[in-house]
């Protein structure tokens, strides 16, 4: 089946192979993170439609929690967009790294632009690990088989979980909303490639109380910029020492 049969059936085969990834631990971890997002959005006073809409259109958890946080803090549109812009920069080098793996001999740019919307950490790690074992002509199909249903399933999950929470006591929804910070702290620590990334995880949090006092309404932005720049230089100094 893998090498013979009409081309459309081979496409279906590779789409299904990609979809098998939905039953792996990284996908389950992501489901739990979106349970957290549903709880968080509900806490912030969003409707379930807004929470699901946000999941489908943004499809980047950090950007989503910044947006939810901004809705609570009453942050302006421009300041929110700027914070999201900064938080989503990381997607560009990720997409750049993925393109040579994903592109086949006859892949058209519009196809890649469409698929790029579904690139986020989970789908990216999955693709970078497994695309080498997929024939080039079917790599976009394989990636679509995993990444597109992953987005659709999580959008449905957010809508369903959000509505189920109506029947939960407030403390239980608080406990579910707490999934998000724990998930992020651990996954960012695990995926940090350099020392500076791990420092940034602590420095961003450490600067927050200062930013909270000095620049209310802009504390996330200020803590991110100061904490991130500080972590970069601290990382460079530490690695410079190690080289010497």
């Amino acid at each position, binding site marked *: 089946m893998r090498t013979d049969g009409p081309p459309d059936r081979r496409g279906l085969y590779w789409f299904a192979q990609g979809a098998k990834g939905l039953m792996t631990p990284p996908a389950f971890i992501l489901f739990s993170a979106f349970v957290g997002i549903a709880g968080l959005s509900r806490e912030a006073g969003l409707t379930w439609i807004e929470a699901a809409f*946000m999941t489908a259109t943004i499809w980047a958890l950090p950007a989503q929690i910044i947006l939810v946080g901004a809705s609570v803090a009453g942050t302006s549109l421009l300041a929110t967009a700027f914070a999201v812009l900064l938080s989503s920069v990381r997607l560009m080098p990720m997409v750049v790294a993925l393109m040579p793996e994903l592109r086949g001999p006859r892949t058209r740019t519009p196809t890649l632009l469409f698929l790029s919307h579904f690139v986020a950490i989970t789908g990216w790690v999955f693709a970078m690990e497994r695309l080498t074992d997929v024939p080039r002509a079917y790599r976009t199909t394989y990636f679509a088989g995993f990444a597109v249903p992953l987005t659709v399933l999580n959008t449905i999950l957010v809508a369903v979980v959000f509505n189920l929470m109506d029947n939960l006591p407030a403390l239980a929804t608080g406990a579910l*909303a707490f999934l998000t910070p724990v998930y992020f702290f*651990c996954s960012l620590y695990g995926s940090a490639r350099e020392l*500076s990334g791990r420092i940034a995880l602590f420095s961003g949090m450490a600067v927050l109380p200062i930013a909270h006092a000095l620049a209310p309404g802009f504390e996330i932005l200020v803590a991110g910029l100061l904490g991130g720049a500080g972590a*970069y230089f601290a990382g460079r100094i530490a690695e410079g020492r190690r080289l010497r």
Partner: protein
Amino acid sequence: MSEDLSYYGIAADWWPFAFILLAGWLPTDIWRTLGVLSSGKLDEHSPVAAISRTVATALVSAVIGQLVFYPTGSLADIPAIVRIGAMAAGFGVYLGVGRRILAGIAAAELVIFGWIAFSLWA
């Protein structure tokens, strides 16, 4: 109207969706699009790429910090010491069992549900 362009700043049904698209979707998908169009032209080892990674991480960690230290809603009903304890337990278990996120999440939730059980009983 330029006074308060926040998420709840305009009382119209469509406004939250416009806010999500303008402040969430646009500044996120612009990077994905640029990534496709510029593939093969960007050096991910450049200082600019490195500093954008640390700023992105610090931004998210600041949001995490806000949820742990200055929460609103029912998260605020959980005492600060329980929130910080749950976070520490989650990260500690995550590191202790060889970087398993689900184990870390389970440990943190155990602390919170333990506190809920305790406060219902006490």
